[in-house]
C-alpha cells in the first residue's frame, strides 16, 4: 500500500464531510458519529487537529485528555495531547477498521476518518500495547461523551430521554434546533430494543444501542418535531432490525422515539471555537458583553487575599500574588489536601471504569453502551 499524505486527507470539497464516514469493522459508532457531526458543524476543528509532516511522512493529531488546571491545579482542565500517527499505524487502522469512503482499504479516498480514529485508538492504548490493541479497545462499544471530550476538550450537555420527555416537545425542538444553528454537534444515542422497532431507528446490537448524527430538526404546523439523522454506517440497511434503506439519512418523530424508550440520550457538543480576534474582544468584556468592571477594593483582612484582589487587573502582579499564596503554609496545606482528594477521586473513577468495562456486556450502567 502506498504512503498517504495530506493530499489524501479530504475529498473534492477539501474539507471533512460526514458522508466520508462508513463504520465498517469496529463497534465505535460512539466515536465516528461525533466525528461526523463535527465534520458537518465544525469542519475547521478537524482540519486544525490534523497536521502532516512531510519529512517523517507522519500525521500529528491533537486530541484532549483530562488534566489539572485552574487555581492551585485543582480543577479539571482539558489538556491537549499531540498524537503522532505513522504510516504503519495508519495502514493498520485501514486494515483493521477499514473506515474509508470509497471501497475497501486498497482504494483511495479521504483518509481523515482513519487518521482521527487511529489517533483515538492510540490515546486509548495502554502501556506496551500497539495500534491493533488500541483499535480493539475502542471497537467494543463506548460512550459519545468521552469521544466528544477527546475531540473538543469540552464535555457535552447531555439530555437524558427521561429529561427530554419531561418537557414539552416544543422546548426540545428549540433546544436542538438552537444548538444546530449555533454550529454545535448533536448526537442521538439509542437503547437496544428487544422487539423490532418501526420508528426509523435500528434495533441495536445484542444489548447495545447505536449513535446517530443529528443533522436537522423541523417542526410542523401541528407541533410535531422531526429529527433528521445520519447513520454512521453510511446506509440504513439493517436486516431484522427495523429499517431497510440504502439512504444513510433517516427521519424520526421525536415524541415517538422518546416515548417508545428507544432513545437513551441526546448529547449537545460545544460551539465552534472562537477566532483569536473574537477571543480578544471577549476578554475585554464581561460574560454578558458589557465592559469589565474595575477590580473590587474590598479588604478581606487576609493580606494574601487582599494582594490577590488588588492584582486582578495586572496579570504579572496576579501571577506573583498567586505564587505567594500557593507557597504560603496555608496554600501548601490546601494544595496537598486537594491533591490527595483529587488522586483519591481519580483512583475511585479508574476503579469504577474498570468494573464497568468488565461488566459492560452483561449490565451496562449509566448511559447505554453503543457500538
Amino acid at each position, binding site marked *: 500500500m502506498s504512503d498517504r499524505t495530506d493530499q489524501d486527507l479530504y475529498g473534492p470539497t477539501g474539507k471533512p464531510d460526514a458522508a466520508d464516514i462508513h463504520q*465498517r*469493522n*469496529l*463497534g465505535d459508532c460512539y466515536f465516528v458519529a461525533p466525528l461526523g457531526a463535527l465534520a458537518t458543524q465544525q469542519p475547521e476543528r478537524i482540519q486544525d487537529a490534523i497536521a502532516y509532516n512531510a519529512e517523517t511522512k507522519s500525521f500529528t493529531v491533537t486530541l484532549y485528555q483530562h488534566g489539572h488546571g485552574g487555581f492551585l491545579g485543582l480543577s479539571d482542565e482539558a489538556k491537549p495531547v499531540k498524537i503522532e500517527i505513522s504510516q504503519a499505524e495508519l495502514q493498520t487502522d485501514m486494515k*483493521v477498521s477499514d473506515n474509508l469512503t470509497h471501497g475497501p482499504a486498497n482504494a483511495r479516498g479521504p483518509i481523515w476518518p482513519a487518521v482521527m480514529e487511529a489517533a483515538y485508538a492510540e490515546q486509548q492504548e495502554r502501556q506496551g500495547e500497539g495500534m491493533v490493541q488500541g483499535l480493539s479497545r475502542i471497537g467494543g462499544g463506548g460512550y459519545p461523551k468521552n469521544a466528544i471530550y477527546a475531540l473538543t476538550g469540552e464535555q457535552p450537555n447531555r439530555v437524558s430521554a427521561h429529561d427530554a420527555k419531561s418537557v414539552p416537545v416544543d422546548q426540545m425542538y428549540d433546544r436542538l434546533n438552537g444548538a444546530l444553528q449555533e454550529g454545535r454537534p448533536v448526537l442521538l444515542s439509542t437503547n437496544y430494543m428487544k422487539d423490532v422497532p418501526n420508528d426509523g431507528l435500528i434495533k441495536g446490537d*445484542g444489548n447495545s444501542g447505536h449513535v446517530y448524527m443529528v443533522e436537522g430538526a423541523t417542526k410542523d404546523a401541528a407541533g410535531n418535531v422531526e429529527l433528521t439523522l445520519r447513520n454512521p454506517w453510511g446506509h440504513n440497511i*439493517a*436486516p431484522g*432490525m427495523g429499517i431497510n434503506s440504502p439512504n444513510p439519512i433517516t427521519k424520526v418523530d421525536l415524541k415517538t422515539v422518546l416515548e417508545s424508550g428507544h432513545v437513551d440520550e441526546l448529547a449537545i457538543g460545544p460551539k465552534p471555537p472562537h477566532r483569536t480576534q473574537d477571543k480578544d474582544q471577549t476578554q475585554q468584556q464581561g460574560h454578558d458583553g458589557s465592559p469589565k468592571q474595575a477590580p473590587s477594593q474590598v479588604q478581606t483582612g487576609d493580606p494574601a487575599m487582599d494582594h490577590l484582589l488588588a492584582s486582578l487587573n495586572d496579570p504579572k502582579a496576579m501571577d506573583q500574588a498567586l505564587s505567594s499564596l500557593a507557597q504560603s503554609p496555608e496554600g501548601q496545606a490546601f494544595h496537598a489536601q486537594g491533591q490527595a482528594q483529587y488522586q483519591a477521586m481519580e483512583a475511585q473513577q479508574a476503579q469504577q471504569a474498570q468494573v464497568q468495562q468488565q461488566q459492560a456486556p452483561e449490565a451496562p450502567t449509566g448511559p447505554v453502551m453503543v457500538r
Partner: protein
Amino acid sequence: MKTLARSIALATITLTFGGVACSSLAKDTHMSLDQLPVSIAYSPKTPIGADTYPQEQTAFVQGVTAQAKAKGYQVTGQRVFVFVGYVPEIGPQWVVLHAELNNQLTDTYRAEEIAKEVSAEEPVASSFWRLSDGQVLAVAQSQPLPDGKALVGYFSLKK
C-alpha cells in the same frame, strides 16, 4: 412465472418452518450451521466450495482454526460465504453483519457472546458464541479479497 411463484411459495414455507424450528430450538438449543441466517449481504446465498478464492480461503480458515485453538477449541464444521456488503459501493461491514447475527443468536437461540476479536491478520474480525446447551459457534470475516469483497465463515467448535 408459475415456476417462480411456486419457488417463492416453497421458500416461504421453508422460511416459516425454519422459524418454527428456531423457536423449538430455543428450548433444545443444539443447532447446525445451516440454521444460522444467510445474510442478504452474501452473494451467492449458498456456501462456496474450496475452489473459490482458494488461497484466501485457506489462509482465512487457518487463521480462524488457530484462533479457536488458542481458546481451546477445534473446528468441527464450517460454511464459508462471499460477503459483498449491504451496499456494494461500501462493501463488507462487519459491524452490521455482527448486529444481524448477534441479534438472531441472542434473541432466538439465547446464545451468549463469549469472545470477539479484531486483527490485522486473518481473520480481520471474529466473534464466538456459546448456546445454552454449551455448544460453541464462531463467525469470522476475512481480510479484504483482491476485488474488495470478503469471506465470512460460520464455524462449529468443540473442546
